[in-house]
C-alpha cells in the first residue's frame, strides 16, 4: 500500500491533536500541517501571560510538551490555504503551491468577532487578543498605557483584564449584559465572582456598550459609550466572542452552516475531508442541538477523533457541552458546564451559597438527570459531575450527594455495581 498523505490546515489545538493521533495510528503516512501564523504551534490560552509578562513565549510552544511529542510531523508556517480542489484532491495555497492529499483536515479555528457598530477600530492600541502576535503587540502597547478599556465581559476579556491589572494598568470592563460572564452563568450566580473582581480593583460598567473609539497620532485616546460617557484610555481590548474561519472555503462545494458541518465521525460533506475544533459544527450531547464552541478541550478531543478516523480507525465523536469552562479569576476558582441558564425554563435547580462558595445544580424537569453544574469557590470533584451529565446517568440514590456537593467516585462505583 502506498503511504497516505495527510494534510492539515491549521496548526493549533485541533490540528496538532489530529496530527499526533494520526502518527499514533499510522507511522508510515506523511503528515503536513499548514498554518498561516508565523509562530510554531503554541498553547493559545496561555497568551495572556505574554501580556502580563509572567511567562516567556518560549514556554508556550506545543511541541515537546504535554501529549505533543510525536515525531515526523512536517510544519509549514506562514502559509495560507486558499482553496480545496476536491475533485483533484488538492489543496491550493497562497504561495501558489498545490498540495495533493489523501485525507484533509480543516482545523482553521476561529477569530475574534468584531461588532459592526463600533467606529475608530483602526486606531493603534485596539486589540482583540487571539494570537501570540496580538499578545506581543498588546504587551508592548501596555508599556505606554495607564488606562485600558475592555469591551465585553467574557472569560477571555477577564483574563486579558487581569494581565493588564498585573502590569499596573487601570482597567475598566464595559459589559453590555447585566453582569459579567453572562455566557457561563446567570447574574444571580455571579455575585461571588463579581465581588472578587471588584475587590481585585477591576472597574466594571454593566448594561452599556461602546459607540466609538477616539484616537489620533498616538493611537487610542478614549472610548465613548452609547450613553455618552467618555472613558479616556490608551488601549482597548475587544472580547465579543469568536467566529469560525470558514471564508476560504467554497460554501457551494462544502456544507457550511456558520461552521463546517460534519457527521459523527467528524467527516465533512466532501470526500476525505474532515473538520475539527472551533471551525466545526458539533453537537451538544445533552440536547442534541448543533453548536459551535470556542473551547481548547473540545478542539483537542475532536481533533484526536478526526485524526483516528483519517488514519482508518473509525472513531465516533461524542459531542461537547457548549459551556465547559474551568478557571480561576481574582482568586476565585469556578467551573461551569452543561446547561446553567435556567431563567424561564422548567429545569429543576438547586442553588446553595455561603460566604465563599456557591453552587448551582441543574436537573431535568423530572429531577432524574443532571444536565448542568456551576461551582464557584469550591470546585471539588467537578469532573465527576461532568461525567454524570455527559453519560446522562439516572441520578437515583445519588441525588442527595449531588445536591450537597459530596459526590465522590465511590458513589459512582457502588451505583454501577448495584445497578
Amino acid at each position, binding site marked *: 500500500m502506498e503511504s497516505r498523505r495527510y494534510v492539515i490546515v491549521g496548526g493549533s489545538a485541533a490540528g496538532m491533536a489530529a496530527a499526533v493521533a494520526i502518527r499514533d495510528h499510522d507511522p508510515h503516512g506523511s503528515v503536513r500541517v499548514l498554518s498561516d501564523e508565523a509562530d510554531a504551534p503554541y498553547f493559545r*490560552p496561555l497568551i495572556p501571560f505574554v501580556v502580563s509578562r509572567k511567562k516567556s513565549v518560549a514556554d508556550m510552544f506545543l511541541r515537546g510538551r504535554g501529549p505533543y511529542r510525536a515525531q515526523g510531523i512536517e510544519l509549514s508556517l506562514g502559509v495560507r490555504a486558499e482553496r480545496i480542489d476536491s475533485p483533484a484532491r488538492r489543496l491550493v495555497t497562497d504561495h501558489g503551491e498545490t498540495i495533493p492529499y489523501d485525507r484533509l483536515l480543516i482545523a482553521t479555528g476561529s477569530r475574534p468577532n468584531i461588532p459592526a457598530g463600533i467606529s475608530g477600530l483602526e486606531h493603534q492600541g485596539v486589540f482583540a487578543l487571539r494570537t501570540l502576535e496580538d499578545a506581543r503587540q498588546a504587551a508592548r502597547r501596555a508599556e505606554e498605557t495607564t488606562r485600558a478599556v475592555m469591551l465585553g465581559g467574557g472569560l477571555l476579556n477577564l483574563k486579558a483584564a487581569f494581565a493588564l491589572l498585573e502590569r499596573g494598568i487601570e482597567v475598566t470592563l464595559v459589559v453590555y449584559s447585566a453582569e459579567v460572564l453572562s455566557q457561563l452563568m446567570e447574574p444571580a450566580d455571579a455575585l461571588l465572582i463579581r465581588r472578587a473582581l471588584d475587590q481585585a480593583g477591576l472597574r466594571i460598567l454593566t448594561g452599556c456598550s461602546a459607540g466609538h473609539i477616539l484616537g489620533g497620532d498616538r493611537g487610542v485616546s478614549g472610548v465613548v459609550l452609547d450613553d455618552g460617557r467618555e472613558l479616556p484610555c490608551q488601549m482597548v481590548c475587544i472580547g465579543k466572542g469568536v467566529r469560525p474561519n470558514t471564508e476560504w472555503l467554497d460554501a457551494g462545494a462544502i456544507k457550511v452552516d456558520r461552521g463546517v458541518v460534519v457527521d459523527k465521525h467528524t467527516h465533512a460533506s466532501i470526500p476525505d475531508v474532515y473538520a475539527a475544533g472551533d471551525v466545526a459544527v458539533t453537537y451538544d450531547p445533552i440536547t442534541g442541538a448543533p453548536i459551535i464552541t470556542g473551547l481548547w478541550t473540545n478542539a483537542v478531543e475532536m481533533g484526536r477523533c478526526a485524526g483516528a478516523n483519517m488514519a482508518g480507525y473509525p472513531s465516533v465523536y461524542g459531542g461537547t457541552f457548549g459551556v465547559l469552562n474551568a*478557571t480561576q479569576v481574582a482568586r476565585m476558582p469556578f467551573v461551569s458546564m452543561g446547561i446553567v441558564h435556567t431563567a424561564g425554563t422548567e429545569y429543576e435547580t438547586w442553588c446553595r451559597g455561603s460566604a465563599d462558595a456557591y453552587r448551582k445544580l441543574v436537573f431535568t424537569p423530572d429531577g432524574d438527570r443532571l444536565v448542568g453544574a456551576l461551582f464557584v469557590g469550591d470546585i471539588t470533584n467537578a469532573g465527576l459531575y*461532568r461525567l454524570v451529565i455527559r453519560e446522562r446517568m439516572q441520578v437515583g440514590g445519588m441525588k442527595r450527594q449531588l445536591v450537597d456537593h459530596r459526590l465522590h467516585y465511590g458513589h459512582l462505583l457502588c451505583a454501577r455495581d448495584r445497578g
Partner: protein
Amino acid sequence: MNQPKEIFVRIDRCMGCHSCEVACAVAHSAGQSLYAALSETPTPKPRLYVEWVAPDTAVPIVCRHCEDAPCMHACIAGAISRTPGGVVMTDKDKCIGCWTCVMVCPYGVIGRHLEEHKAYRCDRCPDREVPACVDACPVKSLVYQTATAFSRGKRRTASHELQSGQKG
C-alpha cells in the same frame, strides 16, 4: 516491552483505616516523617483518598494514570504528560492553576494546592521501590503489580471462590 507496574485496588479488603493517605502525605512532605509533616505549612496532602459509601463500604480512590488520560489532553498549558514508565505527571512549573484537569477527571483524584495555586496528583512515588500507600496498607487492599499479574491473581481468586462456592 516491560510492562510497568500499577497501583490496583481490591475494594473488598479495604477497612477504611486511612493509613495509605497518611503514608502518601508523609512521602510527599519535605521532612519525610509523620512528626515533621504535621508541622509543615502548607500541610502535606495525600494524593489518594479513602471515601465512604453508606452503609459500610470504604473505597480507596487513586489516580489510574489513564491510558487516554483526559487530564493530559485537556490541559491548556501543556503541563501534563506521560513518562516513559506510564505515569501521568503534572509539571508544577507549567501548571497555571486553571483547574481544567479537575473539571475533566472522572475519578476526582486531582488535588488543588490553594496556597501554590497548582494542581497535584499521584506520582506513583518515583523514588521508591513500592509506592508509599501500597507499602502502608495493612490489609493489602492496595497492590503494586503489572496489569497482567494483577488480572492473573484476580482470576485465580475468582476460580477459588467459585470452587468453595460449589463445595458450600
